[in-house]
């Protein structure tokens, strides 16, 4: 994607740093607190941006930088509006992936016995559920926010306590345990490993169970006092333009393994990757109230509720 930008603007030299948001966040906040402003723009899942960097005053108001009519016109976006991750316009959401991470081992639990998430509280499932430890934001806790959003705190409490699930720290190992039949249901497993396994003709007994999904937002922001404000403005406008978002979608297809669940854009004039539509990853942007919006201020509240509930459950174990 950066290459496409450079082709269009060869006079702007881009230095790209690829880091996990959880590692980049303390770095950029500490830098800013010590007067070092080394970065212009940031694109990633928006949770760390919203929960840590925005409250620390680490972003510029993006509306000061967005000037192209095609970027500022709400008609160009699904849902008919510019979707911000925060109340104030700091982080612009360019993509929201809808998913959950609830997988079933059908050798352990045939479809006749379990086919929707309301059945998670079935007493026959006691001790047969593996959940990734809910001590930090990840696929497991994100899935729980979807359940919380739709089913309420009581449902979650009963799932975490009455169903006596096993809490596992490592996603890949939990995935392996699900495949091996140690658990009948896995929440927070490693989706990519399962996708790879199934793509290669294995793990046929493992199926994902849809429902009560969460939306994981990706977005862009311009960091406080960018060293190159004009270049940052050019980049932000290009990124949210049709051309930029097409490059964004294509980059996901080029650099991640199938089924390219994430490959779509919030722009209405950018075609999503067909796999993303087939997998149901593209949210209903007209009815976002269906989802727990993770990576937004509202979603942060629900995530905190999930983590706090787990702490109480964990303390009582």
């Amino acid at each position, binding site marked *: 994607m950066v290459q496409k930008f450079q082709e269009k603007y060869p006079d702007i030299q881009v230095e790209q740093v690829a880091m996990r948001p959880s*590692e980049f966040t303390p770095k950029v906040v500490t830098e800013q607190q010590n007067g070092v402003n080394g970065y212009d723009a940031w694109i990633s899942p928006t949770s760390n941006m919203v929960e840590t960097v925005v409250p*620390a005053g680490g972003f510029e108001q993006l509306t000061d930088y967005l000037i192209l009519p095609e970027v500022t016109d709400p008609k160009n976006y699904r849902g008919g509006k510019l979707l911000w991750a925060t109340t104030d316009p700091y982080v612009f959401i360019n993509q929201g992936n809808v998913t959950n991470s609830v997988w079933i081992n059908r050798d352990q639990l045939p479809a006749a016995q379990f086919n929707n998430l309301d059945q998670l509280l079935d007493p026959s499932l006691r001790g047969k559920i593996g959940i990734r430890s809910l*001590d*930090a934001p990840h696929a497991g806790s994100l899935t729980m926010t979807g359940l919380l959003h739709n089913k309420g705190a009581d449902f979650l409490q009963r799932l975490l306590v009455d169903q006596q699930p096993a809490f596992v720290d490592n996603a*890949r190992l939990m995935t392996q345990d699900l495949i091996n039949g140690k658990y009948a249901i896995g929440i927070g497993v490693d989706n990519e490993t399962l996708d*790879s*396994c199934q793509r*290669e003709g294995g793990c046929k007994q493992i199926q994902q169970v849809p429902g009560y999904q969460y939306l994981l937002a990706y977005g862009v922001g311009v960091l406080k006092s960018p060293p190159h404000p004009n270049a940052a403005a050019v980049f932000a406008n290009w990124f949210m333009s049709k051309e930029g978002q097409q490059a964004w979608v294509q980059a996901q297809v080029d650099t991640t*393994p199938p089924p390219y669940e994430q490959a779509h854009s919030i722009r209405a004039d950018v075609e999503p990757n067909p796999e993303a539509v087939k997998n149901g990853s593209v949210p209903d942007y007209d009815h976002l109230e269906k989802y727990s919006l993770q990576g937004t201020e509202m979603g942060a509240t629900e995530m905190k509720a999930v983590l706090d509930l787990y702490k109480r459950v964990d303390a009582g174990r």
Partner: protein
Amino acid sequence: MATASTTIATRPAAPALWQRMRPDTMFLIGTILLGLIGFIVLYPIILLAINSFNVAPFGRAEAWGLDNWQAVFSQPRIVQALKNTLTLALVRQSIALVIGVMLAWILARTNLPGRRWLELCFWFALLLPVLPVLMGWILLLDGHHGLLIQAIRQVIPGFSFDIYSWWGIVVAHLMINLIPLKVFLLTPAFRNMDSSLEEASRTAGAGTLRTLFKVVIPIMTPTIAFITLLGIIRSMQSLEIELVLGGAAKIDVYSTLIYRQVLQSPPEYGKATALSMVVLAAMVPVIALQQWMVNRRNYTTVSGKYTNRLYDLGALKWPVFGIFVLLLAFIIVIPVVMMFLGTFMKVYPQFDLPDPWTLNNWARIIKEPTLIKALVNTLTIAFGATLLALFLFTLVAYVSVRTRYVGRKPLDFLTWLPSTVPGIVTSLGLLWLVLKTPIFRPLYGTTWILIIALGFAGMTLGVQLIKSSLLQLGAELEEASWASGAGRFFTLRRVLLPLIAPTMAVVALQTFAAASSAVSLVALLGSANNKPLSLLQLEYIDTGLFEAASVIGVIIFMLSVGAAIIARTLSMRMGLGRFEQANTGR
């Protein structure tokens, strides 16, 4: 005409005032070292300690209070976590020490066939990445599906062992790092022992084991004490294995409690640093005790009359060799095979796929456009850190044990402190240090700051190991050199350094391997220009391409293996190992 010749004896002129005032060179060097290391070690720790009283969310304006400390000590599982940490540390360190001492003694002091190659295998074992090796062990020892467990149950029905247990954590540590580390650290020290001490004991009628416990081990006290203490400190910080195995077994340890604080969003560094300060405070008296033990007596094993006659194992030679081979099969062969296998698999460890094998992982990495640059960055950083570490640690160790510098004990004490604070917390402290210090700030984001940070990272192990080695050298070696007219630094360079070359090789390899695979520190202090292989590997992991990421892991491993071979070759040519003599009689 006769003349009288008179000789008047004159006293040498008194030194001029400026000569009397001139500071001793070692005093200057010692003071510079004390200042430098004191600053680099204490400044981040002080910042972290202050931060433990900052109760505001990370990134916001500071607010001071005791909430972090109250939250830490009111955690219901903290007492159990502390108990688990201590019991796990003591049990596995005890077992590893006993096994390690035996193995190191056999490798260094006997005529075991292939002992040099066997020792090298232990070095290689230490270079393996922890997580992939652990996953291999889980494949073998999982209580339900472990391949080894199932095989044992064919012979012993009802056999029960699960790696997801307290003893599973102990076994995993022993096989993955503890036993190799003990052998790695102890063997050079055993090799430096004068065999005449053992011969005198046997001549007096003591058997092999009695000699080992009554002569050898007491002589080796500084090395054993330092290795034991370092092992306990590292056990307190051990994270990866506990995170994977302990989580499933509901076993918390101190490091996992700290790790979970940092994982929060926003990260709870206040609570993490409060927990870390508790560990630091607990370790301070233990470090002081170790210093007292080491300073009590003389531990010279290498003198002007050094001999290294090997003990003849006799009929036990090949059975002992067989035990080594079996042990190394589990410690290095199986993990390396699994690691390489993983790079040729489509989905590791799904052996039951219709066609599980592929070359695509290697093809993807070889075509990676940033691979060469990442490789060059890795080599630059790793070699730079290694050279810095060798120079600095040798100097610090020398000042600590071979001079009368007044600050040598505080200097030695300071070198212990970095290892008492967990790495995920130390990284933040180092970031603060670099950004707040005018002399370091211009280096931020450059390769130089990474070399400095990674060079200092292994200070505890490096300084203490070289120090233990220097303690084994008799003073008469230097005195003979001085008496011949050589100065202090000439003596250090031409007499002492060759004698401690094997130990320096160990320190060099440890620094190189750690610098090659470092992630957190590099991520925080580096930039896009100096991205090494470890960060490239992380990018592949984050995009779900685990198998391709494991190819990079193999490349990093092979780099370290190459460094190990070079280090070993050089050290054996320079050190006391070249004086090994066969013992023709028992």
